[in-house]
């Protein structure tokens, strides 16, 4: 490749107040390649791309597009320069059709119809060429997340983008949706488009990129050819120290049954049966992983056990029946019984984002006697002190109890939740997606904490859609598909292929094992 780089950034710097988000960053992205930018949360990846897309103005530095120095004061200029951006959180009008969303803001003339028919023609072509098929007349709210993302890509292509930036595109996708996305990206690259993929997932970088740049604390620490590096080396460049990518643990020594579920059925508010009579158990000193594509009933199981969804069937904790109707129990009684819960979605459930860290550190346990000063008043000072200790033990950064939860990075938010739940020393810990949106350094730490709890003889029920995580963390794996259990394996005796088949509802896995 001797052509001009599609994008060249020279000496880009950007500060927000005292925080230097980007420090003297230079990078060359060659045309017709997939260029990965990897780094932990807060490393400055998104800031850099926002500068490129005209959301922020760099304090210093220059941008060259195909060899020409280009000023990008706003996103209109970026689009004119052929840059398209697919955001982590989609910017689509929910009750518009796909076609209307694609055309929105790029209508030609006052009449809508010519633009729409032109877009329809283009959509059909793109669908054929790149597996980008989406029904143009479907409204956005009817589409799955993966399809919505395709609409974002189509929007960029409709605006004649030659350079496509994707910000953490797989964060919301299932594994198969992610694979599909990567096939689309490779197809686009082969047609000569340039793609910048921002991510913190090493596997994606290795799977799909040609070149990779690593960012750490606002600086570009390295740019290498993907074929000449490996995940371990990249992780070290990202974090700045050696990282364990595999969970370090000894074989489990399961003892008595802690949790026993028999014939659990869950019907949701719309009358749809989400869990169709499952049996499972978790023992002391083991981690049971429930694998499965999101939406196959795992979340409902966690919610039932967490005490905020009603169900039928029989569940016992250490031999004692627990109430499933919701009439005699709620999240508070579950906690009192020794079931602690790290929920799947820390933003929706695990944290009150506007609450301070110290307020969050007692969330769900705020009625515990040690946090009360009198019958009516809470002991906020004791809670702050308690929070300081837990923040230190779980290495939450920054260790400031008086900071609102929304101001912590994803990994540190998750550590707050984990510290709160694990430090109660529960009989049974429910864990949902413990490392979703969490950076590598924190993943290692979070996994260690869960394993330590197991080694103290406690039971852990883990739900994760990341197969890798289930395989490395769980001792025993149960697979759910369509509200039923399609198989159970020991983690040591199975592999991704076999679990993948079970996750798709294929119970005959004799070919894969």
């Amino acid at each position: 490749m001797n052509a001009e780089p599609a994008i060249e950034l020279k000496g880009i710097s950007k500060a927000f107040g005292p925080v230097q988000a980007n420090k003297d960053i230079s990078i060359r992205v060659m045309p017709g390649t997939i260029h990965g930018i990897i780094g932990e949360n807060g490393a400055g990846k998104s800031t850099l791309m926002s500068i490129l897309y005209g959301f922020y103005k760099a304090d210093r530095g220059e941008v060259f597009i195909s060899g020409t120095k280009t000023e990008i004061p706003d996103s209109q200029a970026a689009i004119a320069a052929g840059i398209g951006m697919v955001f982590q959180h989609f910017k689509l009008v929910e009750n518009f059709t796909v076609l209307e969303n694609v055309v929105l803001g790029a209508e030609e003339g006052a009449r809508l119809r010519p633009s729409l028919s032109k877009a329809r023609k283009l959509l059909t072509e793109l669908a054929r060429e790149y597996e980008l098929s989406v029904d143009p007349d479907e409204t956005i709210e009817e589409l799955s997340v993966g399809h919505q993302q395709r609409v974002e890509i189509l929007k960029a292509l409709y605006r004649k983008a030659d350079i496509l930036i994707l910000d953490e595109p797989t964060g919301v996708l299932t594994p198969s949706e992610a694979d599909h996305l990567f096939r689309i990206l490779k197809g686009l690259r082969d047609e000569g488009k340039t793609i910048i993929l921002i991510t913190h997932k090493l596997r994606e970088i290795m799977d799909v990129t040609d070149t990779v740049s690593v960012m750490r604390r606002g600086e570009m620490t390295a740019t290498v050819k993907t074929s000449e590096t490996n995940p371990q080396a990249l992780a070290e460049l990202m974090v700045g120290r050696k990282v364990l990518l595999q969970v370090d643990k000894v074989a489990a020594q399961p003892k008595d049954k802690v949790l026993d579920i028999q014939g659990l059925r869950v019907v949701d508010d719309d009358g749809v049966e989400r869990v169709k009579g499952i049996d499972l158990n978790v023992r002391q000193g083991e981690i049971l992983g429930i694998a499965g594509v999101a939406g196959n009933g795992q979340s409902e199981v966690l919610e039932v056990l967490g005490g905020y969804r009603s169900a039928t069937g029989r569940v016992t904790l250490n031999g004692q029946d627990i109430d499933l109707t919701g009439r005699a129990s709620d999240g508070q009684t579950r906690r009192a019984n020794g079931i602690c819960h790290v929920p799947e979605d820390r933003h929706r459930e695990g944290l009150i984002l506007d609450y301070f860290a110290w307020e969050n550190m007692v969330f769900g346990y705020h009625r515990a006697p040690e946090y009360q000063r009198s019958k009516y008043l809470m002991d906020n000072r004791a809670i702050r002190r308690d929070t300081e200790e837990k923040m230190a033990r779980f290495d939450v950064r920054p260790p400031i109890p008086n900071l609102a939860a929304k101001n912590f990075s994803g990994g540190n938010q998750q550590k707050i939740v984990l510290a709160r739940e694990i430090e109660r020393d529960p009989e049974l810990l429910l864990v949902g997606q413990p490392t979703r949106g969490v950076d590598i350094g924190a993943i290692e730490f979070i996994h260690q904490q869960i394993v330590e709890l197991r080694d103290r003889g406690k039971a852990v029920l883990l739900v994760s859609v990341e197969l890798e995580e289930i395989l490395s963390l769980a001792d025993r794996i149960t697979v759910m598909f369509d509200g039923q259990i399609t198989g159970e394996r020991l983690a040591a005796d199975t592999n991704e292929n076999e679990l993948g088949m079970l996750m798709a509802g294929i119970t005959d896995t004799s070919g894969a094992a």
Partner: protein
Amino acid sequence: MDVMPKWADAILIPILSILISFFLSGLVILYLGMNPFEALKLMVTGALGSTYGWGYTLYYTTNFIFTGLCAAIAFHARLFNIGGEGQATFGGLGVALVCLAVPWPHWTLALPAAMLGGALFGAAWAIIPAWLQAKRGSHIVITTIMFNYIVAALMVFLLVEVLKPEGSMDPATRRFGDGVALPKFSDIFGLFAIEFSDAAPANISFFIAILACYLFWLLVWRTKLGYELRAYGHSESAAAYAGISPTKMIIVAMMISGGLAGMMGINSVMATDRLVLNSVEGAGFIGLAVALMGRSHPVGIFLAALLFGFLYQGGGELALWASIPRELIILIQGLVILFTGALDNLVRMPLEKLFLLLRKPRSEEV
């Protein structure tokens, strides 16, 4: 990171909003052919220039503190209680019934009983919309508005058909009598040999309103219930996860809210010495503006209530002494509400930009 320091958010924005609305009001007054500075002077002397003016300003302020707290506690649970007006009206009935029921020997006995009566009646009027919201999903904005109308009609019926003394032409109850007369500011300040106008209605309720502000703060930021209310207000899904019952939160928040509105009756009804039609005079709605402007914090609510008390009294004076129609006062109040409540971003956005600009040079030095 927050763009602006806290003091700018809490103090600078409201002050700028008020200045803008005053400026626009001034233009209107100018258009009506009067000097706006003259008008302002009239308002200030009328509301703050004498103990008589202060007495009225603080009397209105007391009402607005109660209704402001009423709206604010609901805001904390993310409930929009538009029913403050109706709850205060019904609470006023509770106060009146307590005052009429017993020949009270002294106000010290009557006041606690009247507070209880007002709070219970106010809470009772809030509990049905709350229950409908919690159990049936009927939107609380709609139901509380409906309840405002229901109680208005109910009061007409009660005052015309039931509570009106024989032979009277006036839709009002009989006088409560001296046994429930609350000490006015003239009595209280008289103890310290400070002269205060005897004609102004401000009374000991003002201090009870301040006490209510403090208790409100304790409740919201220091108790388990306040913790749960705010958590529920921020995130319903997280509250469910933590085992906080939404039904309980809605009903409790609305009962406290209605109770606070009902307590207004000790000021408005007891000071009038009888229950008349429309004793609330729109204070329930002004409470919403007070809570919005005060950022649902008792200190802010106190200051905002003071401002609206000033506008109410000063506006009345303006209508009395100048050739300015009474409606103009409503316009001025409307502009203040518009700018402090609804058009918050109009001031906030430019101010945030300014702060970003100011911050930049400092970071270069670092």
